[in-house]
């Protein structure tokens, strides 16, 4: 089967600085790929290139067999097939929740209002926010806003969803509600590309882990193998940093004999 998404020899520069180096990555339809790596390794940039928010400088990027790196690409079409959710939600602050959700379906896809609205309300109910239908973004918590942002992308009926550190700006107790929504999509068989620092989540949800550093993919592996037996020293180092807190030795208490004597 041909991959749904295929990066080949993909290069991206910011000025003189090369942020993506010769990236090869193929994602099958229905696959959940989690991209891990230290800050600045290019993982977010990779997602943004797939949505046309960043322009690539070389190589090839195909979506469903169609080459995207060329002057003829209609990014408006591509973006309807590739949904993207951002770290800071970016809901449209001057619109109610339902208007946020319907903007794309009505103005871009020119769909019937009652049909699009029925879908939006069903999705809202699914993420437990139907009662916030007419609320404004500023009245919602971060976790609620992020779930709405996910629904906003889903309302376009995309083939792929991109998640760019979507829990990084949230309080810990709100992370769960957002991750549950993403896991639900994974269970349904949606194709997902996820950039995250939630290691336990990555392990639970991924079909495959992609580890990047300094603009290159260093390792691709099944999550269990990646987390138990990383193949590269750099990945091992990276994982050790995350397990550091868990394995932190208890601070030794002051000797007790002073009180005893």
């Amino acid at each position, binding site marked *: 089967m041909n991959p749904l998404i295929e990066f080949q020899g993909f290069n991206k520069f910011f000025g003189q600085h090369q942020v993506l180096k010769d990236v090869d990555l193929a994602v099958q339809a229905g696959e959940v790929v989690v991209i891990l790596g230290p800050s600045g390794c290019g993982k977010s940039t990779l997602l943004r290139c797939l*949505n046309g928010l960043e322009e690539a400088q070389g190589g090839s990027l195909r979506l469903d067999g169609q080459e995207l790196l060329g002057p003829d690409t209609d990014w408006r079409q591509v973006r309807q097939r590739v949904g993207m959710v951002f770290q800071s939600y*970016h809901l*449209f602050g001057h619109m109610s929740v339902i208007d946020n959700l319907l903007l*794309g379906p009505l103005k871009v896809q020119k769909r019937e209002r009652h049909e699009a609205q029925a879908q939006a309300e069903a999705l809202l109910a699914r993420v437990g926010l139907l009662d916030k239908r007419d609320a404004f973004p500023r009245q919602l918590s971060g976790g609620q806003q992020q779930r709405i942002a996910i629904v*906003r992308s889903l309302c376009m009926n995309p083939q792929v969803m991109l998640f760019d550190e979507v829990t990084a700006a949230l309080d810990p107790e709100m992370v769960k509600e957002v991750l549950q929504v993403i896991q639900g999509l994974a269970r349904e068989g949606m194709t997902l590309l996820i950039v995250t620092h939630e290691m336990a989540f990555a392990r639970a949800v991924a079909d495959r882990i992609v580890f990047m550093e300094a603009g290159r993919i260093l390792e691709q592996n099944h999550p269990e193998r990646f987390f138990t037996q990383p193949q590269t020293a750099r990945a091992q180092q990276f994982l050790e940093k995350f397990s550091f807190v868990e394995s932190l030795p208890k601070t030794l208490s002051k000797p007790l004999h002073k009180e005893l004597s």
Partner: protein
Amino acid sequence: MASSGIELLLVSLPQLAMGAGQTLAISALGILFATLGGVLYGVLATLGSRWLNILLQVYLELFRAIPVLVWLYLVFFGLPIFFGLSIPSFWCAVLVLGLWGASEVGEVVRGALQSLPRGQREAGLSIGLGGWQLYAYVLLPQALKRMTPPTINIYTRIIKTSSLAVLIGVVEVIKAGQQIIERTYESVLIYGALFLFFFLVCYPLSAASRVLERRWAHA
């Protein structure tokens, strides 16, 4: 004296009203073109095109560096000489006020658009909005709150500056007042009336601007 003053005002009223009508017409049209042109300028300035930005910068600096009065003379006396184009003085005033106002309003619109978080643009693009849809549905409505108070202040400046049109022969409210003074020598009374006229037109605007600024300070 007091009664004769009021009598004079009453007698002069039709003439003053004609002038006031001209002033208001020039101002309203100038404000209309300044607003339309300013929004266009603001949108063009945030598209990220280098050549466009240089062009807009030149336009802006020309209107910042050269007094409006000089522009009025340039258009009124220059166009017929250099291009054989003769425009009535009323429309010259509208044109210059509109172009000058557009550069001022344009900078306000540009600033308001640029102060929006970059993520708004990206979120709009990511659901497939096209260029003009992005501005019409996402960016301009959110910039509106930030740009309205300073834009209203520019409107009052356009109204006040419209008085320069007298120098290219438009019989607006000040010219009408001067004609009455030439006839009656009642300069204090007439200029007092002019003072009141401009105050009554401009003060509500600047008060509205202040109220909106305070109300939207947290938006």
